[in-house]
């Protein structure tokens, strides 16, 4: 049962691309060089004659989606949507199969080269447990990033959303709409950087082919056993018992089956 939905409400017009959020996230979470749990994307300025060239900066990270495809791609449930709405990774349960990484339309996930497991934003649980905000939110000098429980109307995030409810935008990939819980006020750019979620062929095969095959086989086998058991109980003994004590033709040895050296004959001591 969902108790909360922690989310980020971002006024990207306030973002000055200082990258403090990216740096503080790296410090707080110890992400290895070349990897980051969050980002600031920039729109391309329009240099056409008569246009006003300007760049819009858009802070982002894992969007803790309502319908996270990464969760569908995880075979063990190491990636799961928590009761507080945060999409979490249980590092101890993650085997590093990499399925979840292409399944995110936002590229929010990476395989941590040190831990060799999946990694992404988890809204800094250690900081929140200590009564602090996530590192990126805490450090933002213009307060472009606002964090809170949008199911709690008293939270800053919920109030902002309510104030701007008629002009809130989400960055969505039309082919993979995961209903992200990352809200941008008024407008944001760029919006064309997402990619269609890719379910790895191995996982698609597991859920679409292997799973039905396995369940059918086990079902048939179980049914066969039940039928045999039913016959045994009804008839009081195995109906094939007599006929398996075959009176078939005496076939002498020396045919195709090799004698087993380990199987020596012994006589009963009695």
């Amino acid at each position, binding site marked *: 049962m969902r108790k909360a939905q922690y989310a980020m409400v971002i006024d990207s017009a306030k973002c000055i691309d200082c990258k403090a959020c990216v740096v503080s996230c790296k410090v707080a979470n110890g992400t290895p060089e070349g990897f980051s749990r969050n980002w600031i994307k920039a729109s391309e300025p329009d240099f056409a004659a008569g246009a006003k060239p300007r760049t819009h900066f858009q802070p982002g990270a894992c969007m803790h989606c309502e319908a996270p495809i990464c969760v569908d791609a995880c075979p063990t449930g190491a990636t799961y949507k928590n009761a507080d709405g945060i999409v979490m990774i249980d590092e101890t349960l993650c085997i*590093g*199969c990499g399925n979840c990484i292409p399944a995110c339309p936002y590229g929010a996930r990476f395989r941590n080269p040190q831990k*060799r497991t999946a990694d992404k934003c988890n809204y800094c649980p250690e900081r929140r447990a200590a009564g602090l905000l996530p590192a990126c939110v805490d450090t933002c000098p213009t307060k472009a990033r606002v964090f809170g429980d949008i199911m709690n109307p008293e939270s800053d995030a919920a109030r902002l959303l309510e104030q701007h409810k008629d002009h809130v935008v989400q960055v969505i990939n039309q082919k993979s709409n995961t209903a992200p819980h990352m809200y941008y006020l008024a407008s944001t750019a760029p919006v064309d950087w997402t990619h269609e979620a890719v379910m790895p062929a191995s996982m698609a095969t597991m859920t679409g082919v292997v799973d039905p095959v396995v369940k059918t086989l086990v079902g048939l086998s179980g049914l066969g056993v039940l039928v045999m058991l039913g016959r*045994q109980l009804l008839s009081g003994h195995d109906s094939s018992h007599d006929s398996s004590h*075959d009176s078939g033709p005496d076939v002498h040895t020396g045919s195709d089956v090799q004698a*087993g050296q380990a199987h020596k004959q012994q006589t009963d001591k009695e």
Partner: protein
Amino acid sequence: MRMYKRHDRSDIFIHWFNAVCWFLLLVTGVGLIHNPALNPFGDAFPQVLRGMVGGGGNLLLVHEIIGVAWIFGFVGYILVNPRGAACFLREVFAVSPDRDMPWMFRKLVLMTLGEKALKAMGQPSALLPQGYYNMGQKGFGQVSVIGGIVIAVTGVIMLLSDVYFTADATVAVSWAVTLHYLAVGVVFAGLLVHIYMAAISPDERPGFRSMFTGSVPEEYAKHHHRLWYEREKARAADGE
């Protein structure tokens, strides 16, 4: 009554060691699958099991430890009794289609639909004599050996994934997950029949007992494994 030896002590040990490992690995393994599109026994089973051992990470660790022990158990068995292992493989994979396929078909129909159904199909109800293993046992043996190898190899790949594999090699890990599930599913389907035939069906009671004592009575050997019985008898006659 004469008794015919079928299993060494190491054979008996590896059978029951394998049985215990398979049971524990199956239970913990099913508990490790948690995905809305899979969940073989529903959503609650993995949650309950994980709760019992203090989280999914611990369950994974338990599964890995038992899995490694299972592999080492087989390595140990092969070192202790290489001839027994080789003999098992030879017997299990020695299929004589002309004899074994009709046997398999007739036995299957007899066990499920009955003798009348078999006669209605125009088939005689007499079963052709079988060797050290009958075709049903061979079939399950083949599935277990091939499935077991797939399970062990894919298991080791998954075990090493977060120790050894880099991000661009995870395709192997991802396919290992799929193949592990497939192999376990196929072996488990066979295992249900194996457990019924060996432990529940009265037909194979002496065979079941031999998995503790190592030997079967002459009557049973003669009726169930005629070719093997004749071979053993001839060998005894030669020896005496």
